[in-house]
């Protein structure tokens, strides 16, 4: 695929994800992984996991992980196109529907849609966790880091950035 073709395909796919990301972008990570890692081989598993980590740790919203993917595929143009693709469709919908919320907020169909989608989106967040663990945990130490992070963040309100820092130090020591 030419670089132009890649940017086009990426934009179309991310625009679709924008409209399917009920509950935020964590829900569409498995689909993004399928598309960019498995189907198109634009990123390796480790790069996908790295971009997720950078997006979590860096100042700025997590959905900009998609800009990092775009950067990897086609540089500056790719980053801009990916960011626009993930933002514009959902943003346009929010703009269009924002003023109507009062009218359908209490409608029975609205609640049925919300309650019907909720378990599915939750299953998709678990799938995100599964896909990222498989991408990031390639030995005993990384597996232990993941397990300890789950236990500590579940049991306390500790800012996860401290765990990221500790994990980064272990990595700098060559243990990961």
């Amino acid at each position, binding site marked *: 695929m030419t670089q132009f073709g890649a940017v086009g395909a990426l934009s179309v796919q991310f625009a679709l994800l924008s*409209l*399917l*990301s*009920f509950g*935020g972008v964590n829900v569409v990570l*498995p689909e993004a992984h399928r598309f960019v890692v498995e189907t198109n081989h634009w990123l390796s598993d*480790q790069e996908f996991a*790295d971009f997720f*980590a*950078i997006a*979590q*740790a*860096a*100042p*700025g*919203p*997590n959905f900009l992980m998609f*800009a*990092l993917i775009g*950067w*990897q595929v086609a540089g500056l143009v790719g980053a801009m196109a990916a960011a626009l693709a993930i933002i514009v*469709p*959902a*943003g346009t*919908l*929010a*703009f269009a529907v924002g003023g109507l*919320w009062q009218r359908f907020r209490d409608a029975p169909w609205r609640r049925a*849609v*919300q*309650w*019907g*989608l909720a*378990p*599915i*989106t*939750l*299953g*998709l*967040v678990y799938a995100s*966790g*599964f896909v990222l663990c498989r991408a990031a945990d*390639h030995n005993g*130490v*990384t597996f232990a*880091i993941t397990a300890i*992070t*789950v236990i500590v963040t*579940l049991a306390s309100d500790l800012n*996860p950035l401290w*765990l990221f820092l500790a*994990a*980064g130090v*272990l*990595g*700098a*020591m*060559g*243990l*990961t």
Partner: protein
Amino acid sequence: MSDQTASSAPRRGVDGLVDLFLAFMQISLSGFGGAINWAHRALVEKRRWMTDEDFTETLSLCQFLPGPNIVNFAMCLGQRQHGLAGSLAALAGVVAVPLLIFIALGALYTRFGQIGMIHGVLSGISAAAAGFIVTVALRLSRPHRQRPLSAVFGAAAFLGMGVLKLPLLSVLAVLAPPSIALAWWMQARQR
């Protein structure tokens, strides 16, 4: 709007657009793991643009709609204050500076990402970040404990995307209609 007494009116014209841009830039850049707590602090407590109730209300709309919550929030509040120009100013606040930061990080990654120590650091952090999203999923599960039937749909979504790697569109097309129908039916039974 009737909530003018509890919240203070935004400034008019270009000043108002600049305010929106700056407020959303601050929200977007601060905070970890979801900007929503910071949004409440910036918009309700500090600037008093929204009442508590208003905020909760707008947030539930933004969570109902697809897309990044913070983008939806910027579009809705921007529109309410200054129409399309307001939405675009707020959206620019969310995206512009963080996107520059992310592009810089992308460039650094391309240059140094595979070098020994940096590679190790990222590999450690990505293992921790993968653990954090598992925690997010576990926390989100708590309200669902009372609904064993709907858990079947969650399990099917997990299997379809995580294990079988099916296309998301197909997974949603198969699972969403019966799951929504079930929710509708349970709701009707409660009434």
